[in-house]
């Protein structure tokens, strides 16, 4: 090993991190080389200076913080309760105004759910109101009623899926022309009708329905045939 390599190892000698034989060989060289000896002295002096530097000391609050964490981590845990148990036993505190609002919200949701349930329980009847009087006639043809059970009534503003294939109601549109002749036409095109009630709005898509000119469509609740 040359002096440069020896000097690189002096730190490891100081740290007793070398094999005994290697350390011995290095120190033998150091004892005969003034340059390496100088470096060895510097290494020892550096260690001495560093270790003479006073030890930093934490504040007393650190001890208190750590011990508190220890005690908290080892404190007996309360028996775990579900939130409803805690609510029942009064462990959860809810301000009265907030509780009142919660009750009102729950009651409203129930009312809406009941309403929707009623709607869903009854088929919707689509009625075609009377078309505009035919020119030249004296009486308007009677309204044509088409019973169209809607398979599903969704919530307000949702569009239903339209005619149910399961229904046995005739899916025909009867119309009466000015001459009083009755004809039926199959429902062909889709049509979206809407009816806005007092508490809900329902849209129903009718499949294969051919709209009648100047006709208006009204969706009412009622029993289907």
């Amino acid at each position: 090993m040359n002096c440069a390599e020896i000097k690189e190892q002096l730190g490891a000698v100081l740290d007793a991190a070398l094999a005994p034989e290697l350390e011995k060989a290095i120190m033998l060289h150091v004892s005969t080389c003034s340059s390496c000896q100088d470096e060895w002295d510097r290494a020892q002096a550096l260690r001495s200076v560093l270790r003479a530097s006073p030890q930093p000391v934490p504040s007393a609050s650190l001890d208190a913080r750590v011990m508190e964490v220890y005690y908290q981590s080892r404190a007996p845990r309360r028996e775990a309760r579900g939130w409803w148990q805690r609510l029942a036993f009064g462990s959860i505190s809810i301000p009265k105004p907030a509780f009142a609002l919660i009750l009102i919200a729950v009651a409203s949701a129930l009312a809406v759910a009941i309403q929707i349930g009623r709607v869903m329980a009854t088929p919707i009847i689509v009625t075609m109101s009377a078309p505009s009087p035919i020119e030249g006639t004296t009486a308007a043809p009677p309204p044509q009623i088409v019973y169209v059970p809607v398979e599903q009534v969704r919530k307000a503003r949702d569009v239903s899926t339209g005619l149910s294939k399961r229904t046995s109601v005739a899916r025909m549109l009867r119309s009466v022309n000015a001459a009083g002749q009755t004809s039926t036409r199959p429902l062909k095109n889709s049509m979206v009708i809407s009816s806005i009630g007092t508490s809900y709005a329902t849209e129903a898509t009718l499949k294969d329905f051919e709209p009648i000119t100047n006709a208006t469509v009204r969706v009412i609740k009622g029993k289907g045939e």
Partner: protein
Amino acid sequence: MTNRDDESKLIRAATLGDASAFSELYGLHRDRVYGFAYRMLGAQAVAEDVTHEAFLVLIEHPERYSPERGSVLTFLCAVARNRIMNHFRRSGQELMDQNSNETGDFAEQEDEAERDPLRNLLDQELAARVNAALKMLPPTQREVIVLREFQELSYGEIANVIGAEVNVVKARLHRARQSLAQRLAPYINADRRQYELRRN
């Protein structure tokens, strides 16, 4: 210093709620963990937070410590090191830039009346100079020199803490010592004379 078996017993007892066992463990390692954190960060409050977090991990996750992998001190220093590096990343710069001249955080002798005031002053100055010299080192060199010179961990333990090989530790130590020797030259030169005198 307790051996690993003793430490394992203390940890087991502490885990089972023996406060005195934990207190003993804490007392054994507090200063060294804090010293490592302080010399890396240069700020008392942050160093205390890091120390607190290191012991918190030991308290809440004692299963993470394994005697086969190293001593409790090595474990605590490794946790502290992770927190320190997180601080560096979050702050974007080393905290030692902000608090490079703290002189009030160093050990005071218990019996102040017997201390030479001049000695106190010299100690304070030395601490400040050493801190300033450490601050100039890159964190990777600083951590190995602090762990070696102040916490007196072996090369293997240092390698364990920083997650590197022993030869990397050795190389970084060599570079750190060269840098420090230059920056602390006046103190080193004064100290060297005693070695020359001894030889002569």
